[in-house]
């Protein structure tokens, strides 16, 4: 409860001093992001308070202070933790000097609660987001602003936070877990955030590539250390909250067990040496380290060439260290082994009482071969096939127009979308409101059936996915999740309605 009080006090402080221009002074290294406090005593209801406001805090290891925008005074914002079936009520207040929204990236919810550009919250206004977490959606999501033309700026200023939806039947619930939110930023000498003039060369480069920063954070901390008990398995939920940086994650030669994606767990886990996480995407992996206590392994971002040569940054091929993982003494099975210099997510307690002996149950990671069923969407039910052509800054040759509907779909219809990237740069494609299943990439069938809301489409390639527009009519955005592209208009509007259809 005291966390909530802190937030409220902070808000009151903001209001009391000088309205939205007031700054909160937050000491360095205390901006870990706890879970939002549930204010409701009603079972099955999660009611939280969220305030977006300017703040001043030390993001850089140097201790220099930076003016940021923060949710409840935190960067990243506090974790929203809910369970399948929960009714969620978010009492949001905008204390920023500009309009904003809160988009619940990946969640299946009513159009009016989506936090899309259609529902701006003016400075000083409150807005209540209300929705129900659908069964089967357990997974890792995130929230961030989505006002047209300003998303990149507001996210870059610090507005992003994680969401974990928990399911009652999570086969991995017994594992200790970490939420790792990846972000990057760029700073001036004085510690302020660097948003260059759009007409300057740096501004032009940001426009082309998206704004990448040379300082990479995990949960708002540069190169934090994470302890893992020797031989024990940890579950990592990873969110790419960067405006443009794409992470090709690797663990210095060790394998991950890739167990989930945007919309939750896979049917079958798969061992991989590296994972590409594009903007807005999430992955869930299991990590198990053996080694002498005290030895370390780095989580790294390997070079990934998503650029075109004309604007490829000079340092694109640098390997970046993200996180030090230190092997600790083996601990009692089933207990939390993480000491958090990173954000401590609430460590899952297994619904079965934490009896999991994670050591070795067949596979290295001691998890079942089938995690949960991921039933395929029925291709025989497909009534409409659409092509979405992404070029640099445009979808189907057009820039975003809030007054235009680009596609109309029947409520409940199953469709196949072919997303074509016809230029040289990668573009991650995000659809609001509905999870989809990738069918194939460049005609090659997808090996792993998974729920996705964002898919990276490399240059001059295509991805086909199948999607069903269940339950929620409304206006849904689809866009490139490189935020400067989205802000420039690389976005369209899908209307889902009864009696809908083409175009």
């Amino acid at each position, binding site marked *: 409860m005291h966390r909530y009080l802190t937030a409220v006090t902070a808000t009151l402080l903001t209001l009391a001093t000088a309205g939205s221009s007031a700054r909160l002074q937050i000491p360095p290294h205390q901006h870990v992001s706890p879970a939002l406090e549930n204010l409701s005593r009603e079972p099955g209801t999660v009611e939280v308070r969220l305030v977006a406001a300017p703040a001043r805090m030390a993001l850089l290891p140097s201790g220099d202070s930076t003016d940021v925008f923060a949710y409840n005074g935190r960067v990243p914002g506090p974790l929203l933790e809910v369970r399948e079936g929960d009714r969620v009520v978010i009492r949001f207040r905008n204390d920023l000097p500009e309009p904003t929204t809160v988009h619940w990236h990946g969640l299946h919810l009513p159009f009016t609660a989506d936090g899309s550009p259609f529902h701006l919250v003016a400075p000083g206004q409150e807005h209540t987001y209300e929705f129900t977490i659908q069964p089967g959606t357990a997974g890792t999501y995130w929230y961030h602003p989505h006002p047209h033309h300003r998303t990149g700026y507001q996210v870059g200023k610090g507005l992003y936070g994680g969401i974990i939806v928990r399911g009652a039947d999570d086969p991995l619930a017994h594992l200790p877990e970490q939420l790792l939110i990846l972000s990057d930023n760029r700073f001036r000498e004085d510690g302020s955030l660097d948003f260059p003039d759009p007409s300057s*060369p740096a501004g*032009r*480069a940001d426009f082309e590539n998206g704004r990448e920063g040379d300082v990479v954070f995990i949960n708002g901390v540069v190169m934090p250390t994470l302890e893992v008990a020797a031989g024990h398995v940890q579950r990592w939920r990873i969110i790419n909250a960067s405006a443009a940086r794409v992470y090709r994650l690797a663990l210095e030669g060790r394998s991950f067990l890739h167990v989930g994606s945007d919309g939750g767990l896979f049917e079958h886990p798969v061992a991989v040496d590296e994972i590409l996480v594009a903007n807005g995407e999430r992955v869930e992996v299991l990590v198990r380290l053996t080694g002498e206590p005290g030895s370390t392994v780095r989580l790294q971002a390997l070079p990934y060439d998503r650029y*075109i*040569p*004309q*604007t490829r940054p000079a340092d694109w091929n640098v390997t970046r260290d993200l996180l030090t993982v230190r092997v600790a003494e083996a601990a009692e099975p089933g207990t939390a082994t993480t000491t958090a210099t990173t954000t401590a997510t609430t460590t899952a307690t297994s619904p079965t009482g934490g009896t999991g002996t994670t050591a070795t149950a067949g596979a290295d990671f001691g998890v079942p071969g089938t995690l949960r069923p991921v039933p395929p969407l029925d291709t025989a039910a497909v009534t409409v096939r659409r*092509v979405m*052509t992404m*070029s*640099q*800054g*445009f979808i189907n*040759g*057009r*820039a975003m127009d809030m007054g235009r509907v680009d596609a109309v779909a029947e409520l409940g219809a199953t469709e196949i979308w072919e997303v*074509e*990237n*016809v*230029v*040289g740069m990668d573009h991650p494609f995000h659809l609001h409101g509905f999870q989809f299943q990738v069918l194939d990439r*460049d005609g090659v069938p997808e090996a792993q059936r998974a729920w996705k809301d964002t898919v990276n489409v490399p*240059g*001059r*390639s*295509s991805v086909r996915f199948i999607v069903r527009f269940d339950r929620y009519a409304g206006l849904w955005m689809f866009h490139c999740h490189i935020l400067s592209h989205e802000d420039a208009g690389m976005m369209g509007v899908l209307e889902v309605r009864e009696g809908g259809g083409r175009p």
Partner: protein
Amino acid sequence: MNAARSRTLTLAIGAATLVAATLLVLAVAGADAAGPTAADQRLEQVLRGRQLVITHDCGACHGGGTDPRSDDWLVGGLPGAGAGLRVLSRNLTPDPETGIGRYTERQLFNAMRWGLRPSATPDVDITSATPGVGNHPLQPDYLAPAMPWTSWRNLSDQELWDMIAYLMDGVRAVRNDVPESEKPADRWAGWFRPEVIGPYPILPFPAAGEELRAPDRLEEVLRGRRLVTSMGCGECHGGRGNPASPHWLAGTWAGAAGDTGTAAADVPAAVVASARAVTVTAGPYEGPFVVGELTVRARNLTPDNVTGVGSFSERQLFNALRWGLRPGETEDAVITSHVPGEGNHPVHPKYLPPMMPWVAFRQLADDELRDIVAYLKYGVRPNRHRVPASDGPPDFWAGVFAPAALPPMPPPAFPTARERGRF
């Protein structure tokens, strides 16, 4: 003059140019009520040829780019690709000792149609592409591969005679003794084997690399086909002038002969900057251009939706040909100016590389550009072939194509100081 000449085809020349030509005839020759004189007709032919010489970018290699006001207009001497041999472009001015004034018009016709070196080929009518047949020399002495005659030969007889008329009677003679080019022992016969360059005349539409994708667009497709096959698109984009080629317009083909591209040393920076001699230097190789540290590859022009131009609108492709703007990165709008920020021209334009001769192509009539676009979108068979991205400067060549650096459009009035207008 010869049998082939009677096979005159429709002229691919814009109405605007014809009007301009007529006006010039009136102005320059002072036509009287009795009708056109022989000199009037020759002037008209010279003007048609001038338009073809400009739009086919002869000056890119032979000097002067697309601007007939240039001091070095068609005087030759620029280096071109020759598989490691030293190859220099010839002096195309009618100087009787160092230029084409040494040759007959028929010898020049045989050079453009059959690729035969005028100085080493008898002055006779030639009717076949096959050595030893129809007066084609049994041991032909071909022009260097840099000369894209494998496309020029698809021009009509009349168009070739028009270009020759311009070179002979419309260009001021300049004495410029260009050293002989080196050539291999087979005088390039190995480069120009029939199975490599395809048949002449080209196969009827649709050839193996073609299909009619919009039946109501057939007329445009056929007109566009004539332009695409005769303007040298395939010299860089694949298949040379042969739409039956398996690589027809599918872009730089990794693994194709000469994939290592043109050695940087062959291509002086000034040449790249001024025009695009590199286009022709790399022509028949179907490999990437290597200019300094930049590797530039010809795009896939087939209408494949993902790797080709199939997803671009006709207007975007028109804007690529007329204004040099990259179709995937330019708003789909009517553009009316070459000046950034004016007439819908992007404030920060992203241009195709200088190897792409859009500065020459933009002098084509609107209808001709639309026909080319119609052919690419509706007359070519899609070929899913991913060409890696090309290198380029961060300004997307905007420095090279600054408005002040571009010759006027339409071209400057005839005759310029480098041309002559009396017959």
